[in-house]
């Protein structure tokens, strides 16, 4: 059967799915909204449909039927982790293939609290905190008091807690508190925000780790029960709004940084824990297990992302399957369409260091304010060690739509080691020209200077 894939997403991920489909000889159909008409993903697709909203399942399914698609790739964001959508895709009267995990897995791992409970059952360490959503501020205050006490007893001189929307994600709906008196008002604010954004008032409270590295384990499973990992990546450099800005693979580099713990052993431990949880739920697609690692070498599972991630290519760039380069999107599509992996863990090796830079139209001097406007010029120097993923055209001007994040491009850079990748990242950033104007007519600024500055902090613990 010849498959045709509906790409239910926009921008650079839609373009990468197109690449993977072409690589596999599959036809694809794109969707777009009026705000995205200038995006390269719209220009490139031969068959495309304008829809009202990428988040509307009815739009996606109506187009899939009309265009004769057999499978839907949700990309990341939008409907990617909506288990109801995934269930509907496979359960409807004319079922389609959902390119992602089974809907039950998305449901179970989509809940941070359920992941915590499952992890505790499997003796996987998690950040201390509540394991049920809280709705009552008196109860929240009592839990917060116990957590403050736990932190103090464990030698934390300046204990802090995070109050989070239970259904949140992507760094949204998280606030920090330092005093017990702050808990109730912040709880109320986060609860109202959670209700507004996620439709659920549930709130969780966690101990705030003061210094940590944010590590991710990349896994790939199949419905046939195969399961491999593609190592780790380090996503510690994030904006104050907890949006990732620089990612590296591998997650630790003992040749570049001195650790007070055995980094290789810890990496093996968190990979092993991640595989244990994936096996327990029979994980059957690409997925990311997120971890926080303290300077003392303690690791805590944070959450699981049941989708392809923005930063998957930084992992793919250093991974080899029997010496050949890897495309995780291609692997994800292959296994969803019923193929087996065709390789085992020992066939996967790693080579060098890769680094990803997220180029964003944001004013880092003014609270990382997202900017819209027009990009009139976007250039950079090409290099064999560089891959740039972007939906922004380079031959004409482009209006940044206000409806979506102002991400402009991803630059993935490879080097034989971390020193080389950093030198190349500096060279790339030095060559980037992004010129334009905001909606107010001011010169458009981007986060390029911020990224240049932050390169000095790779593999450091964040405080």
């Amino acid at each position: 059967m010849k498959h045709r894939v509906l790409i239910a997403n926009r921008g650079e991920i839609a373009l990468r799915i197109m690449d993977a489909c072409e690589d596999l000889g599959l036809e694809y159909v794109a969707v777009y909204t009026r705000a995205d008409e200038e995006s390269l993903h719209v220009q490139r697709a031969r068959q495309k449909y304008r829809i009202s909203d990428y988040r509307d399942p009815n739009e996606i399914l109506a187009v899939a039927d009309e265009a004769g698609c057999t499978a839907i790739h949700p990309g990341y964001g939008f409907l990617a982790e909506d288990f109801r959508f995934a269930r509907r895709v496979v359960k409807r009267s004319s079922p389609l293939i959902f390119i992602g995990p089974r809907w039950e897995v998305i449901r179970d791992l989509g809940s941070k609290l359920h992941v915590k409970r499952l992890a505790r059952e499997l003796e996987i360490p998690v950040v201390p905190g509540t394991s049920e959503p809280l709705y009552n501020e008196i109860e929240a205050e009592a839990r917060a008091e116990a957590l403050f006490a736990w932190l103090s007893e464990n030698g934390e001189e300046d204990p802090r807690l995070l109050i989070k929307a239970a259904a949140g994600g992507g760094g949204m709906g998280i606030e920090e508190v330092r005093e017990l008196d702050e808990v109730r008002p912040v709880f109320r604010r986060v609860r109202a925000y959670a209700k507004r954004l996620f439709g659920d008032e549930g709130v969780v409270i966690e101990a705030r780790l003061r210094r940590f590295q944010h590590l991710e384990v990349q896994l790939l499973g199949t419905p046939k029960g195969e399961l491999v990992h593609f190592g780790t990546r380090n996503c510690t450099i994030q904006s104050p709004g907890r949006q990732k800005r620089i990612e590296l693979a591998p997650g630790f580099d003992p040749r570049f940084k001195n650790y007070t713990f055995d980094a290789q052993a810890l990496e093996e431990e968190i990979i092993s824990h991640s595989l244990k949880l994936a096996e327990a739920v029979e994980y059957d697609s690409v997925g990311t297990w997120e971890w926080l690692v303290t300077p003392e070498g303690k690791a805590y599972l944070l959450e699981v992302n049941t989708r392809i991630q923005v930063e998957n290519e930084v992992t793919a760039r250093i991974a080899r399957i029997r010496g050949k380069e890897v495309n995780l999107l291609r692997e994800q599509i292959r296994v969803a369409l019923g193929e087996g992996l065709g390789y085992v863990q020992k066939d996967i090796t790693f080579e060098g260091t890769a680094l990803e830079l997220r180029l964003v139209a944001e004013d880092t001097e003014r609270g990382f304010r997202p900017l819209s406007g027009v990009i009139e010029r976007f250039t950079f120097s090409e290099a064999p060690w560089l891959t740039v993923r972007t939906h922004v055209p380079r031959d004409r001007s482009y209006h940044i739509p206000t409806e979506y994040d102002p991400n402009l491009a991803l630059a993935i850079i490879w080097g034989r080691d971390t020193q080389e990748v950093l030198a190349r990242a500096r060279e790339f950033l030095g060559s980037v020209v992004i010129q334009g104007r905001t909606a107010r007519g001011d010169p458009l600024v981007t986060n390029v200077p911020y990224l240049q500055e932050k390169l000095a902090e790779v593999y450091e613990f964040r405080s």
Partner: protein
Amino acid sequence: MALNHKRINQLLQRLRSHPYRIYPVETPHTGYLRKILVTEEQEVSAGEGLLVLERERNLKTLRARVGGRVRHLRKDLLGRFLEAGEKVLEIWHPLSQEEAVAEVLRETLVVVRAPETARYLLAPEVETRLLKEKRPLVRPGEELLIMTFMKRETPLRHEGPPMVIFKLFFSPHQVVPAGEPLLGLCLPEEVPYLERVMARIQEEWPES
């Protein structure tokens, strides 16, 4: 005050020469256009059914937001699968007295326009005062509106001398395209003059 009766006359003359606002009727989402319920030049009332769109086996009747005359009806689209935002017809809506006043005020007041295509809310303080007072005074630096886009909320503050909020041009929580008016402001001493202007238009513009 920059405005005078000559300018008002010009604005009214312009409105009289084309006393309509044209509302395009577009498909709100994808779907098959199963029925067209109106004919070219038909007069419709607000709420009247115009089209039937089918998506995922659900039929949806698109209704007229405003009353007026149906123009430029695309009968050729009947039975076809339509993309979102496809224009099917226009409604030429005759301006009411109140709408004519709004049109004049839009060109008369100091207008705060949407800097971005975004969702806008009134600042809580302003919202409360608008309910209590008819035309609240806002001071320099005071938060007027909250602009929500790209997952961020940005306050919009009043710049310039203390002014009165004379007219609200948008519905809070709705997406407003960049450049569209949000609020109409004037100096406190201009309020009586503007009220006279409104009274004059109400007198001269026929009741709909």
